């Protein structure tokens, strides 16, 4: 078998292995009382796994147990996705490598196409709601690949949740689906509340919050694209390492070894990217957009809460500051009193001794 045939064979083997993995997990789920079938077209396998993990570990191991269970299943899903990407990439590389031709152009074309699905988004962001929804769906297909890293970041900045990312309808998926209907209830609907009628001021605040949300969406997409490009670079480097192994007639004998090679290469590639000024600027832009959105949303809420006689955030902040200052005063007074008592005790003792 030549290299191309071997690559084809590897792809087939991996497709079969995936069936085995999902089939095995399905059997496990049935045994544990889980429902659904991950191989059915009606289910998102990642969402299914997440549900199964939740059901299995309900109440077990506390938060750490739940988190670990979710992460274990998420890692299995991610590994399968990466194996798919690597297998496809190797199928592209193998014929050129065998023919002694440079394989990089073909691979780069494939990777560019992959990244393009994401990089095409900003231009289309200005389009209709339908377009955004379609584009979000196309990104959604790649979410399992981007999940491990993006998930954590979005969770941290408050735009999603790592575990929730496995569901297309929440977390990162939600962020991607932030079309008009999801914008309307939290912000637009406030104007309809009694006492918070649509004035020029309320309208301006709502518009600012809407603009901030759009900025956040754009910044988050730019960030995700940067990560996707980083993953593309990592795939290319992994292929280089595999090509090098082929030339040296060295072998990898397990799926795990392939994954280890991938993890090492991907970590190295991404951390190099993380250090670049360009990436840091993009990351800061996303963080700033998320924080700015939070502030603008708060402005709207302040207005609404005020109208409903509910304490606002700025009123709470004033109270917090007053509590802080008072506590400090009490602490200083206690300290002064303690010092005074100590010196009085010392004076009495001295007097008693001299008396």
């Amino acid at each position, binding site marked *: 078998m030549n290299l191309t045939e071997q690559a084809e064979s590897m792809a087939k083997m991996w497709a079969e292995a995936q069936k085995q993995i999902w089939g095995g997990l399905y059997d496990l789920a049935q045994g544990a009382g889980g429902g659904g079938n991950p191989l059915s077209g009606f289910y998102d396998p990642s969402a299914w796994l997440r549900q199964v993990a939740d059901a299995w570990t309900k109440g077990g191991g506390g938060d750490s147990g739940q988190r670990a269970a979710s992460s274990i299943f998420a890692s299995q899903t991610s590994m399968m996705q990466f194996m798919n990407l690597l297998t496809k990439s190797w199928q592209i590389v193998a014929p050129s490598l065998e023919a002694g031709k440079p394989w990089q152009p073909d691979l780069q074309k494939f990777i560019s196409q992959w990244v393009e699905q994401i990089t095409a988004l900003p231009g289309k962001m200005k389009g209709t709601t339908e377009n955004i929804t379609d584009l979000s769906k196309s990104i959604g297909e790649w979410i399992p690949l981007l999940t491990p890293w993006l998930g954590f*970041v979005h969770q941290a900045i408050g735009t999603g949740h790592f575990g929730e990312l496995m569901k297309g309808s929440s977390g990162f998926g939600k962020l991607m689906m932030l079309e008009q209907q999801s914008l309307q209830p939290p912000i637009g609907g406030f104007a309809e509340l009694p006492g918070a009628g649509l004035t020029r001021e309320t309208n301006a605040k709502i518009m600012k919050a809407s603009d901030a949300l759009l900025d956040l969406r754009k910044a988050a997409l730019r960030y995700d694209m940067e990560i996707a490009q980083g993953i593309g670079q990592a795939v290319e480097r992994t292929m280089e390492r595999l090509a090098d192994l082929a030339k040296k007639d060295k072998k990898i004998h397990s799926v795990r070894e392939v994954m280890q090679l*991938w993890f090492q290469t991907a970590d190295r590639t991404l951390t190099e990217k993380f250090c670049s000024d360009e990436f840091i600027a993009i*990351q800061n832009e996303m963080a700033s957009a998320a924080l700015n959105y939070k502030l603008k949303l708060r402005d709207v809420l302040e207005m609404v809460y005020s109208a409903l006689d509910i304490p606002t955030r700025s009123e709470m902040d004033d109270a917090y500051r007053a509590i802080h200052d008072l506590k400090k005063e009490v602490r200083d007074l206690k300290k002064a009193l303690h010092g005074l008592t100590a010196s009085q005790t010392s004076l009495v003792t001295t007097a008693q001794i001299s008396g």
Partner: protein
Amino acid sequence: MLSSPVDIRPSDAIDEIKKINEKLLKGVENLSTLKDEDVDIGSTPKDVIYSQDRLRVYHYKPMVDKDKIFKTPLLIVPPLINGYEVADLQPDRSLVRNLLKEGLDVHLLDWGYPRPVDKYLTIDDYINGYLNDCVDFIRERHSVDKIAILGICQGGTISTTYSSLYPEKVDRLILTVTPIDFDFEHNPKQPHVGLLFHLGKAANVDLMVGALGNVPADLLNVSFMMASPFVLNIGKYADLIDILDNKEALLNFLRMEKWLFGGPAASGETYRFFVKNYLQDNKLVKGEIEIGGRKVDLANVTMPVLNIYAKKDHLVPPPCTVALKKHVGSKDYTELEIDTGHIGIYTGGASQKILAPNVGKWLRERAH
């Protein structure tokens, strides 16, 4: 003719997957039987001897005969941004236990978990307020003028600052993986080393604190995770499959997870001050930090200092720690390098036999 480097036979792959599925099943069984209290961290027996607001001071039960206990009490100061349990993660991986076995009279300051109402707590409140009050309490309780302090990571930076402001109350200063000089020259060949500081230099901390109030632990964890995104987010859990059927090993893994992801938020104003003054402007080594109207001058750190760092520390690279030597006023300054990483220094197997025994030895050599 070239042959494929991936030489996995279908039967082997299926076998590998079958084994993974079996382990998953066993692991899930194990996970579902565990309770949150099984994943216990910080379990070494202790008493709460002092409390103020959310802060607690623990006094640990001795593990040696009374006559072998050091006269000078030791206070462990953890970082504000991580749980104290890193010093006492599990019984066989515990700095606290190991120090007790060395005969030290161990106290630990648990800063607690700031709530929204604590967002205005300043570094002045933490150092001149809480820490100083704890030190005074321990001094009075033990009728001593000075105590020994052991700082953990950022807790070491705080301890160093405190020692500069109150040298008369600190008998010995022990620092572990402590950032002192935050200007680290980033080496492109080792992109993960010092990445945390590199990213922190450009952070818009005013916007962060303005929008969030207290800074959530998860946000801080992002920076830690960025040093190894795939291994820490996928690889670690993929490898976990190997120990899923081993209940004790699984528990230990979960203990670390609990500590890692259960950390406290950082009080907003303190975080702002620390990032701006210590990290971004590197003012500690420049002698430009002012707290509570007093300048922090490292030349005032005149007590004996033991500065311990981890050779493979990528979060606080060794040069950031050992820079202290150039700035302290102490004539008795010792460094100890341990061949491990930032967290491994507390939780690593090999480190258990190095860290606490060396602290004990260093203190014994300087006993009054």
